[in-house]
C-alpha cells in the first residue's frame, strides 16, 4: 500500500510536470499542439548532448534544454501557428507533421537507438522499503512548484491575465489594448520552456529515444481532456488520477494494461463529458 502511494505520487508528479506546458497552450492558446511531445524529446536530447556528450555541468544542460525548448516554441508560433491563425485543424495537422520531422531530425543526429540519460540528481532513496530515484522526487516537487507558479502567473500578473483575456475574447482583449501577438508569443515560449524542462525529467525516468514523444503526448492529452480546458488546477488533480490509476493497474492487474485506462478515459470523457471535470462549458 505504501509502495503504491509513493510510486503513484512520483509518477503523478512527473505527469503533472509534462502536462503543464500543454495545458497552457491548449487552454490559453486554444491550440492543440501535437508537436508538444517533441518539446520533451528536444529537451531530453539537448540535456543529453550538453551534459553527456560535451561533458558540461548538468545545470548547464538543464538551462540549455529549457532555452532550446523555449526557442522551439517561439519558432513554432512564428512559422506555423501564426500563419495558420485560427485554422485549428490545419495547425493540428502541421504540428503532427512537424513532430515527425523533429523525430527524424533526431534520428539523423543521434541515431535510432535508445540512450540512457544520467539523471539530474543521481542516487536513490529508500522510503518504507520502496526505492525512489531522487530525480523523480525532484520532478514531483518541481511540478507542484511550477503548477502553482503558472496558476499565480495567469491569475495575478498583468501578462497572465492578458493571456486569459486573449483566450476568452481576442477582440475584447484587443480593445483593452492587449497586444495579442505578443501574448501568444509569450504563451508559446513558456510552453516550450516548460516542455524542455519536463523532457529532461521524463527522459531520465524512461529512456531517450526518437520515438519517446508519442506516449507522453497521449498522457498529456488525457490529463487536459479529463481535467477540462482552461483549468490549470484540474491538470494537477487529473495527473494524480491518471498516475495512480496506472500504478494500481500495473500492481494489481497486469503491467501490459498500463495505458489502456488512460485511453478509455479520453474516449469516455470526450463522449460523455467533453468539458472535462473542471472545464468551462464549451464545445468546439
Amino acid at each position, binding site marked *: 500500500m505504501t509502495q503504491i502511494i509513493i510510486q503513484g505520487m512520483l509518477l503523478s508528479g512527473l505527469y503533472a510536470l509534462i502536462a503543464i506546458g500543454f495545458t497552457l497552450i491548449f487552454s490559453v492558446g486554444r491550440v492543440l499542439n501535437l508537436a508538444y511531445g517533441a518539446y520533451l524529446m528536444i529537451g531530453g536530447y539537448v540535456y543529453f548532448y550538453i551534459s553527456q556528450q560535451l561533458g558540461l555541468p548538468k545545470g548547464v544542460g538543464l538551462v540549455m534544454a529549457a532555452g532550446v525548448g523555449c526557442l522551439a516554441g517561439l519558432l513554432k508560433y512564428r512559422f506555423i501557428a501564426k500563419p495558420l491563425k485560427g485554422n485549428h485543424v490545419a495547425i*493540428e*495537422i*502541421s504540428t503532427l*507533421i*512537424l513532430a515527425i520531422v523533429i523525430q527524424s*531530425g533526431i534520428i539523423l543526429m543521434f541515431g*535510432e537507438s535508445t540512450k540512457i540519460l544520467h539523471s539530474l540528481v543521481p542516487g536513490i532513496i529508500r522510503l518504507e522499503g520502496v526505492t525512489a530515484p531522487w530525480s523523480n522526487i525532484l520532478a514531483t516537487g518541481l511540478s507542484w512548484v511550477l503548477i502553482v507558479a503558472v496558476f499565480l502567473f495567469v491569475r495575478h500578473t498583468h501578462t497572465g491575465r492578458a493571456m486569459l483575456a486573449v483566450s476568452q475574447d481576442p477582440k475584447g482583449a484587443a480593445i483593452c489594448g492587449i497586444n495579442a501577438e505578443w501574448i501568444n508569443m509569450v504563451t508559446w515560449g513558456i510552453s516550450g520552456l516548460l516542455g524542455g524542462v519536463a523532457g529532461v525529467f521524463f527522459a531520465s525516468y524512461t529512456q531517450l529515444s526518437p520515438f519517446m514523444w508519442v506516449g507522453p503526448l497521449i498522457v498529456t492529452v488525457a490529463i487536459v481532456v479529463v481535467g477540462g480546458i482552461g483549468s490549470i488546477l484540474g491538470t494537477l488533480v487529473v495527473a494524480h488520477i491518471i498516475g495512480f490509476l496506472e500504478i494500481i493497474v500495473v500492481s494489481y492487474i497486469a503491467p501490459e*494494461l498500463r495505458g489502456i485506462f488512460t485511453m478509455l478515459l479520453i*474516449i469516455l470523457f*470526450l463522449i460523455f463529458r467533453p468539458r472535462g471535470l473542471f472545464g468551462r462549458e464549451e464545445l468546439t
Partner: protein
Amino acid sequence: MKLIETKHLIAWAAFLLVLALMPMFVSNGTLRIFIFANFLAVFAISWDVLSGRTGYISFGHPFLIGIGVYATAIMSKRFGVPVEYSIPLAVLVTMLGSVLVFLPALRVKGSYFALVTLAFMELAYQLVQVIRPDLTGGTRGIFGIKTITRGAENGYYMSMCLMFGIAFVSWLVMRTQLGTALSALGMQEESVEGSGKSTTKLKLAAFLMSAFIAGLGGAFYAHYVGAIAPRTLFDINFLFTIIVAVLIGGSGTIIGPIIGAFFLTFLLEFLRPYLPGAGRYFIYGGIALLLYMYQPKGIYSIVDKLIKRWRGGAV
C-alpha cells in the same frame, strides 16, 4: 449530364493501357514500389472520404485499417477460413468497428474528435498485444498469412485493380447528391442541417464508406504482405503517411490522394540511396510541411491551375 467526356475517356484509357503494360518495361523492384503506392492510395482515399470531405479529421485511421488487417489475418490463419470469405467478413467487421468511432462524432468536433480517434488507435495498439495473444500473436504480430498473389507482377495487377476499382466507385458515389452533401458538411454543418438533411445519417454514411475502403484495403494488404505487426500498423508514422499523402495530393478529390500516394512513395524510394534509414522522413516531412503551409490544396490544384493556364483560359 454525360458521365464523362469522350476526350477524357480516351486519355484515361491510354493511361490505363500504359499502366497495364508497365510490368514489361520496369524491374520487379519498381513494381513493388507501385504496389505500395497503390495500397497507400487506397488508404488515402479512405481517409479523404471521411476527413477530407466532412472535415471530421480522423487521427485514428490506422485503427480502422488495423481492424480489417487483423480480422482477415486471424480468420484465415487461425481458423482456416478461405480468403474468399475472410476478406468480405473483414470488411464487415471494419464497418462495425467504424460505428464505434462514429459515436463520438455525434458529440464532439474539430480538435476533440481528432483526439478521440487518436486514443482509439493507441487503445487498439495496446489491446491487441494483451487480449488473446494466441489469436493476435501479441507484440510479434501474425506471420505466414496466406498470400493471394505470387510475384511482383501479379501483385502489381491485383493492387492496381483494387486501387482503380475503389477510386472509380468512390468517384461515382461522390458525384451523387451524397457526395455533395458530405462536402457541404465539411463547410458548414449547421446549413446542411438547416436544409433538412439528417447530418447523423450523412456522417454515418461517410464513416461506413471510409471503413469499407479501409477494411478492403487493409484485408488485401494483409494477404499481400503475409505478415503483420502491431507496431507498424497502429503507428503514428503510418497515420502521418496517410494524412500527408492526402494533403500533398489534394484533399476533397479522388485523384488527389492517388497523386499524393504515388508522389510520396516514389520520393521515399528516390531518397533511399542518400538517406537509408528513417532519416528520409526528415526531407519527406519537410516537403510535406512546406507544401501544406503554402499550398494547402495540394499538387492537384497546382496541376489544375497549370492546365487551365496552358489552355489559355483565365485562372
